[in-house]
């Protein structure tokens, strides 16, 4: 814990211009992609497992400019908590996609870390990405390496959990459609862009390699792994995640991912919706008498609350008498999930960076019972699944919150409907 030796960082900003189509469209449904909470690709595999509370969708990737050299990948995790399309190299090998370059001219590699310590590593390659009927051209995609050669220790960062297969991830990749245009864009700037003003490239993020030795590198924002929606010709200012309600476990839920906000007749922001403006891509949750929100908008310090379709439970700091599950149950390691003796009901208040406010209620059931009971153990939809935030620092509104809600995610810097605050924001 002693002996830190790190380079000084200094702030910097980069400006990008964006174009958003905000005229009313024809009203057709060409901006809709079907999604389903169905357990994912491993649910029916031998020795596989159900991915509970995960929404899946398909994407078609083509070599740039081609309409025939294409693959369609099913069962991508729909994740509003990340930005960019991430697929396994085995899925797109036949396309021979061109490399996206770092600022030093070498092919760029991306590394992303999950809070669990798991990571993804692989080159950035460009392809035309079609979701439903909408296409983004030359989208920088994270192509997850099946090989572990060259993965720098600053990427793995002590973990051996490389989620580079469907068996490891429980999905065939990740469709990141969150509130930023790229996976290294945040608060109107990208720390990974050479224009950031930083003296050295941040890590773990982008790298270039010489032989099997890879080190941090700057990558221009245009070449960073990019939220495909942000590169659509229209309907490119955000998405709506629509899932029906579920109050008890069930096998599947079918819904839709709608592209654009206020750009077509089917994606208008209703006047009844509460819009939560974000600071540091977070908002505030008041729960159990505690306030979980950013306390310093300049440094982004403070407890971090967020809405995230890619989290498969609600995760929040423990409250008295809410028992946690055991790490050694007949159905596996459930540590970190809640196991109350009886289902508990709670309410919380969500607040935006402005004064917008909305109450939200939820229930927490016993996770071990849910996964053990013959009636519920094979159900992918688990609306009352929750776990602890062990740091006591923040509230994660995962996919169970999305059931019965139309959740609007407006992309940072893009045009928004008349009367709405500047993006990024969430609304429902």
């Amino acid at each position, binding site marked *: *814990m002693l002996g*830190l*030796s*790190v*380079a000084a*960082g*200094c*702030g910097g900003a980069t400006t990008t211009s964006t174009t958003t189509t905000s005229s009313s469209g024809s009203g057709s449904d060409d901006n809709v992609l079907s999604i389903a909470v169905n357990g994912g690709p491993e649910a029916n595999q031998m020795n596989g*497992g*159900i*991915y*509970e509370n*995960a929404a899946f969708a398909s994407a078609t990737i083509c070599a740039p400019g081609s309409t025939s050299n294409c693959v369609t990948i099913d069962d991508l995790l729909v*994740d509003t908590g990340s930005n960019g399309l991430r697929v396994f190299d085995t899925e797109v090998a036949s396309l021979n996609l061109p490399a996206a370059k770092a600022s030093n001219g070498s092919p760029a590699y991306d590394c*992303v*870390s*999950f*809070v*669990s*310590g*798991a990571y993804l590593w692989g080159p950035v390659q460009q392809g035309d990405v079609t979701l439903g009927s909408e296409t983004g051209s030359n989208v920088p995609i994270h192509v997850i390496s099946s090989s572990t050669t060259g993965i720098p*220790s600053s990427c793995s*960062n*002590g*973990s*051996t959990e490389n989620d580079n297969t469907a068996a490891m*991830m*429980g*999905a065939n990749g990740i469709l990141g459609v969150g509130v930023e245009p790229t*996976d290294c864009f*945040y608060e109107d700037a990208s*720390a990974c862009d050479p224009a950031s003003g*930083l003296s*050295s*490239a*941040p*890590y*773990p993020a982008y790298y270039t390699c010489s032989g099997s030795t890879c080190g941090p590198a700057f990558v221009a924002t245009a070449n960073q792994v990019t939220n495909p929606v942000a590169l659509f010709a229209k309907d490119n200012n955000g998405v709506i995640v629509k899932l029906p309600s579920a109050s008890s476990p069930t096998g599947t839920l079918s819904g839709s991912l709608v592209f654009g906000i206020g750009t077509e007749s089917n994606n208008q922001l209703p006047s009844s919706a509460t819009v939560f403006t974000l600071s540091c891509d*977070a908002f505030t949750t008041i729960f159990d008498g505690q306030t979980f929100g950013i306390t310093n908008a300049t440094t*982004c*310090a403070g407890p*971090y609350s*967020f809405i995230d379709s*890619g*989290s498969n*439970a609600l*995760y929040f700091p423990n409250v008295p008498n809410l028992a946690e599950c055991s*790490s050694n149950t007949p159905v*596996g*390691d*459930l*540590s*970190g*999930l809640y196991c109350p003796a009886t289902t508990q009901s709670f309410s919380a208040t969500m607040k935006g960076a402005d004064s917008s406010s909305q109450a939200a209620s939820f229930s927490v059931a016993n996770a071990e019972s849910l996964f053990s009971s013959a009636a519920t153990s094979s159900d992918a939809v688990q609306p009352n699944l929750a*776990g*602890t*935030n*062990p*740091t006591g620092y*923040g509230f994660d509104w995962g996919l169970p919150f999305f059931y019965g809600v139309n959740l609007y995610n407006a992309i940072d810097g893009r045009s928004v409907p008349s009367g709405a605050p500047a993006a990024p924001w969430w609304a429902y």
Partner: protein
Amino acid sequence: MNASAQVMRRNAYDIHEIQMPGGTVVDEYISPAGTVFAVSWHGQFPPPMQQILGTYFQQYSAALQAQSSQPKMYGHRPLNIQEQGLVVQTSGHMRAHSGRAYLPDLLPTGMTVNQIQ
């Protein structure tokens, strides 16, 4: 050490704040005897764990490996490593990381873990 740093004084400990290259802030909690007994972090990128954990890095890495080799449900849950003499906990999501690591036996008298944030 050429990091951007500042020191805040508390009664039983000092906090040494370090700004990492990508903006991630790491706070070192230092006892009057000069021992770093805890670190916390928040930022777009996780901190270099080997640098902030020092000699505890191997224990952390082994605990991570043991945890990921157990059967468990899919999804990326916050990390909660409770080892003999070492606790490491995280929260957040991709490109938004918070966490803390501490040595429970070395917390100053009267200090609670909730003060490590």
